[in-house]
């Protein structure tokens, strides 16, 4: 059957996240971006909503099955509140979800319960590399087999919460194949650099991390000694990006609608001008179309279908374009006011630019 109706549980979760996004995140959003910092209490509160917990089976400390569909529904609402906060709240997922998807039984038992059962604790993943042609399927960071372990070398960039993270999954090229390795922070050879300053998402602390002949035992390879397939992890990261792009776009559209209905021009409201109204109609249509595509891709991922990888990529690509278009137009509709930091649309436009290049900051 076709259905666009979330389950009752999903609706409840989405409602809870939406309330948190509106009453907590949105209010803190402006100052967090200006001060490049989020109140820790806010992140902990977001964590307690239990998005990751609901996606982790009971045997590993959670209370549900992993579902990419639920993941994209929640991620959209969270990013609708504030993108940086959403990425922070979800950052333990960067570590936990790949283990859920591809980890060995031992790895799941060892790593998941303390994360899922506890308060928000920083965990992360080092995926993005500082090159213009950064390709997650063709990484420059390498892992070499050496006796009974691996040696990892290379440079990573934009690693969320790298400084304080307990542990991270480092992705490296092993004989041309992208593989994840579990590395605890402070491990010999792991060097976290100065916090990076970005075009947007300023409240999310990100760092460059250098791996200088970091040696890990073979049991630290994601999936165990035989490793894992990287595609489901990559697909889930595309879905997370697509969902968050939807959230940011929805926020920008809504703000632009309210502004246009409020602001007078030539004796009428701005929204009563077709040139503005048509822009809004196109923004809304694009968001709805890409949301459908993202949902279908997530459903394909959950079903383990062959087309899942390609469609998640399409959803991600489409969402990145959508976010840029929608946030740009939101600024345009506010005119000069859109360019002023008192209004959130310029922030969303700066964030809207991130999705096309910075995939790998979250995973659902």
């Amino acid at each position, binding site marked *: *059957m076709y259905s666009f109706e979330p389950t009752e549980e999903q609706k409840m979760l989405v409602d809870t996240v939406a309330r948190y996004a509106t009453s907590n995140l949105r209010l803190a959003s402006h100052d967090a971006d200006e001060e490049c910092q989020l109140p820790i209490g806010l992140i902990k509160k977001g964590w307690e909503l239990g998005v990751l917990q609901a996606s982790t089976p009971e045997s590993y400390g959670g209370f549900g099955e992993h579902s990419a569909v639920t993941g994209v529904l929640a991620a959209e609402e969270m990013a609708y509140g504030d993108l940086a906060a959403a990425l922070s709240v979800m950052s333990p997922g960067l570590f936990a979800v790949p283990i859920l998807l591809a980890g060995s039984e031992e790895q799941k038992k060892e790593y998941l319960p303390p994360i899922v059962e506890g308060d928000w604790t920083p965990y992360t993943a080092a995926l993005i590399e500082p090159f*213009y042609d950064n390709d997650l399927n063709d990484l420059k960071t390498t892992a070499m087999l050496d006796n009974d372990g691996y040696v990892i070398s290379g440079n990573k960039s934009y690693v969320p919460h790298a400084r304080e993270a307990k542990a991270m999954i480092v992705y490296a090229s092993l004989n041309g194949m992208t593989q994840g390795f579990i590395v605890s922070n402070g491990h010999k050879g792991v060097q976290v650099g100065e916090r990076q300053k970005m075009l947007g998402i300023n409240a999310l602390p990100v760092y460059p991390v250098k791996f200088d002949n970091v040696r890990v035992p073979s049991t630290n390879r994601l999936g165990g000694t035989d490793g894992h397939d990287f595609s489901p992890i990559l697909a889930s990261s595309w879905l997370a990006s697509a969902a968050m792009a939807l959230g940011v776009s929805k926020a920008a559209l809504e703000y632009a609608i309210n502004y246009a*209905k409020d602001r007078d021009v030539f004796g009428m409201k701005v929204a009563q001008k077709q040139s503005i109204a048509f822009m809004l109609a*196109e923004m809304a*249509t694009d968001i709805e179309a890409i949301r459908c595509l993202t949902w279908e891709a997530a459903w394909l991922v959950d079903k383990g279908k062959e087309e899942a990888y390609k469609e998640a990529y399409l959803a991600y690509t489409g969402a990145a374009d959508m976010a840029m278009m929608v946030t740009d137009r939101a600024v345009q509709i506010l005119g000069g006011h859109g360019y002023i930091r008192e209004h959130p649309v310029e922030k969303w436009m700066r964030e809207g630019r991130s999705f096309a290049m910075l995939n790998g900051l979250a995973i659902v």
Partner: protein
Amino acid sequence: MIEFEAPKPIAQQSYVLKTVAENMMRPVSRYFDEHEHEIPWDYINFMHMAMKATGAGSLAPKETPKKDADGKERPRIGYQMLACMLEMLSWGDVGIYLCTPGGGLGAAAVQANGTPEQQAKFLTRFGEEKPAFGAMAMTESQAGSDTSAIRTTAVLDKEKNQWVLNGEKIFVTGGQKSLEEGNGLVVVWATIDPTAGRAGMRPFVIEATSPGIKVSKLEHKMGIRASDTASLVLQDCRVPYENILGSPEVAQEKTTTGFKGAMATFDATRPLIGATAVGVARATLELLKEILAEQGVTIRYGLPRQKLTSIERDIIDMEVMLRSAWLLVIKAVWMADNRKSNSLEASMSKVRGGDVVTKITQRSVEIMGPLGYSRDLMLEKWFRDAKISDIYEGTGQINRLIVARHILGYSGRNLR
């Protein structure tokens, strides 16, 4: 639960129609494009026979939901089925698809506006021995998107209890076949009070046998040439009183029920135009990828954009457009089947479908370079066929207006 699995009956039907599209449409696609106004009878007779065999009569969905053995109602999938069928037939040839016998837009209007008795009376003809066609006549030379500006009049002759219609309609899809090829009908929109604007608008069923209506012109078009686009002249065209669609009060009161009925018809048909648009777009993109593959061009999904070639980026963009447009159509018809108000989604799917098919066909011709401009390939034909999807059943602009009014919470007065 969010799901994207085509229901079994739909998957089976799509499979059957793919064979029809491949064997009965594609081989004659070019012929009927080059022989405008010839009627594709082989396709028509086949479809009529097939629809009769399945008891369908027309492509339009049944009102009453099917029941399981235990009496439980099965979920309604009529509009979803229809959208999938139309997408597949348009993938075959959208001009020929528009010649499909059965009620077409005429039946859709009868269904949206007629009483159960009227539906029974007017729609049974489509299941009879010979194929019959239905059309809807709204547009006039001075009234396109602004439907309330129509001037065709309907006056009640109280003595004979008949409506007398006078005026001229243009751009009637399938108008000729409906009136001249078999026992068809045309739903004509006319005003019973020219001073009342949309409150005067009413739909009337004019049958092929009705006196005083004739085809005055057949248009020569950019594309969809297999489908006739007729002008109809109504000169003292008389029909029985009961041919006014809707309950009896509809005739007397000053009411916008008639106009609203027209809009309700569009809510039902707009996603279907979206579906036909997607069919043409899919045909185009598939052919383009096939030719590129023969030339050794493969599309590397999953790469960062900075590493993609221009053609790869184009193809990936087009795939995003195509799939997302299709899912928006599915969402709109799924809502219709589930009796959810879908006016917003219907217009969104029409906007997206029209946009996507014009962009995809235009870009595909371009990517093929000089080859794209040649009639050796079907790309140039689909480029021409595509454009109508952005025009009929409400232009892209009218549908943007509808979407905008919905999201802004504006009436037609607030946003003109």
